[in-house]
């Protein structure tokens, strides 16, 4: 795919807990920062997409940014909400309809595991009544099986979580900025075997925004455009091992991340060996381990040795979750994927400060995954 869309500005409202500050206010702050980064005025923006779980109409952010009358579409797509907003914004430019737009994500969740009415997920009520309608339980089951099938140890899960807390300690925008040792992570309460409390991310609050334009216009705005080579969203196929499934067929199929990744690599004409830095969905440390293989960065089981060798550390062969990932940043669902894009853009520009990946990375990668079996991937390059 030719590089027809460029990212010229990124902005973030820090992730964490912010008292009475509303999600809409955080979205406006992130958008202003992205516009300032791009050197663009809000009145020049021709269209917008915004994603949120908690906010019905995130386009209400125009009350704070300016009522300019632009087409502004709200999207919600579970944990892949931000990927969907980004994909739709990029496609709007590719279609030739507009030249300059923004994708915004914002959320403000109460503490604790996500909950909903199971019937809204095509699950029976009794499934929730008896305590099975729970994402953390799925992630525990998936990694427990994966560890058994592919020889991954609990020590590896602790190392992955410790890496992300360590990276978060280098990120002024992160929710959790205190490094935790592998011993502390393993000693925290088990929530869903084999996963402990400190191996999980938490729902929290935050916002992120990205300014996109037609690639050939990018240098009008910036000397350091980052090109969006591919964005894809895929949902589960029959046989994928997915969250909120009262049953599964005997036949097995790869998860939607595998499908989204393959499509993105094909679209970009870029392979996993070309990726220099990646942000992967680490809902828990086990999810990062599984997603390393699902996105093509290693074979199943190789994570055990590669994690021990530090391959995914800043300075390793493939730095992963350099900003601390979901484990250190938490997950405001609507914003999480644009936080990943924000980090990749900083890394590719060489602006990531204490957590900058050495060697002037050229290609970055982001992946989201969540209920009820939805994945989003993007590939970016200088």
């Amino acid at each position, binding site marked *: 795919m030719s590089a027809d869309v460029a990212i010229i500005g990124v902005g973030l409202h820090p992730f964490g807990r912010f008292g009475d500050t509303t999600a809409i206010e955080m979205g406006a702050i992130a958008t202003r920062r992205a516009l300032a980064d791009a050197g663009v005025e809000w009145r020049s923006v021709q269209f917008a997409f915004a994603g949120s779980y908690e906010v019905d109409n995130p386009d209400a952010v125009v009350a704070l940014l300016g009522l300019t009358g632009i087409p502004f579409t709200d999207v919600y797509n579970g944990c892949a909400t931000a990927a969907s907003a980004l994909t739709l914004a990029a496609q709007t430019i590719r279609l030739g309809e507009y030249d300059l737009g923004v994708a915004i994500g914002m959320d403000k969740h109460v503490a*604790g*595991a*996500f*909950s*909903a*009415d*199971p019937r809204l997920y095509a699950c*029976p*009520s*009794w499934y*929730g*009544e*008896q*305590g*099975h*309608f*729970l994402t953390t*339980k799925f992630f*525990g*089951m*998936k990694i*427990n*099986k994966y560890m*058994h099938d592919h020889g991954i140890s609990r020590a590896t899960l602790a190392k992955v979580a410790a890496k992300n807390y360590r990276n978060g300690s280098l990120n002024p925008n992160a929710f959790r900025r205190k490094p935790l040792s592998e011993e502390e992570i393993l000693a925290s*309460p*088990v*929530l*869903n*075997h*084999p*996963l402990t409390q400190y191996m999980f991310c938490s729902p929290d609050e935050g916002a992120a925004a990205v300014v996109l334009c037609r690639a050939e216009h990018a240098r009008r705005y910036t000397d350091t455009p980052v090109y969006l080579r591919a964005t894809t969203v895929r949902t589960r196929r*029959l046989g994928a*091992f997915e969250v909120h*499934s*009262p*049953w*599964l*067929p*005997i036949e097995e199929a790869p998860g939607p991340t595998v499908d989204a990744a393959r499509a993105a690599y094909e679209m970009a004409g870029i392979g996993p060996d070309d990726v220099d830095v990646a942000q992967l969905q680490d809902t828990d440390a086990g999810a990062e381990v599984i997603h390393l293989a699902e996105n093509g960065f290693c074979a199943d089981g190789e994570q055990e040795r590669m994690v021990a060798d530090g391959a995914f550390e800043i300075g390793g062969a493939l730095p992963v979750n350099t900003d601390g990932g979901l484990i250190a940043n938490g997950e405001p669902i609507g914003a999480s994927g644009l936080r990943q894009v924000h980090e990749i853009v900083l890394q590719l520009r060489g602006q990531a400060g204490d957590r900058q990946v050495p060697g002037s990375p050229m290609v970055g990668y982001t992946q989201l995954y969540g209920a009820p079996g939805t994945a989003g991937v993007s590939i970016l390059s200088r």
Partner: protein
Amino acid sequence: MTRVPIAPGVFTWPSDDPQLIGSRCAACGIVTFPSQASCPRCAATDMTEHLLPRRGRLWAWTTQEFPPPSPPYAGPRGADFVPFAVGYVALAGEVKVEARLAGTDPDGLVPGMEMELVLVPFRIDEDGNEVVTFAFHPSSDEAP
């Protein structure tokens, strides 16, 4: 105390030899649980009720160590909450069903082990009835 099922149509009730109630697609043969009106594989709408095998092998499992958010969870909470194991059991090549795992502590759970359907007490409802649900526990003898 009167015993009542967690919901109608989930398992045969009353029964000395309970079975889960699923459905089978007349067009492609896929088996679902619970029963549903259309096929998730071929989209046909000709589904018939199908009683599931009572035995199968453990495919994946974890534990639930904290009370799930309520609602939707309706079971014992606070000091009354007892952590439980949960997993998928592959029933004789037909379908994998997610269920509580009973009759063993997690150390006794091994992928591939033979499991058998049982009904277990779940909670006491507002009318004082004992609500029962389905679970799997290790088979008392080898599979036939």
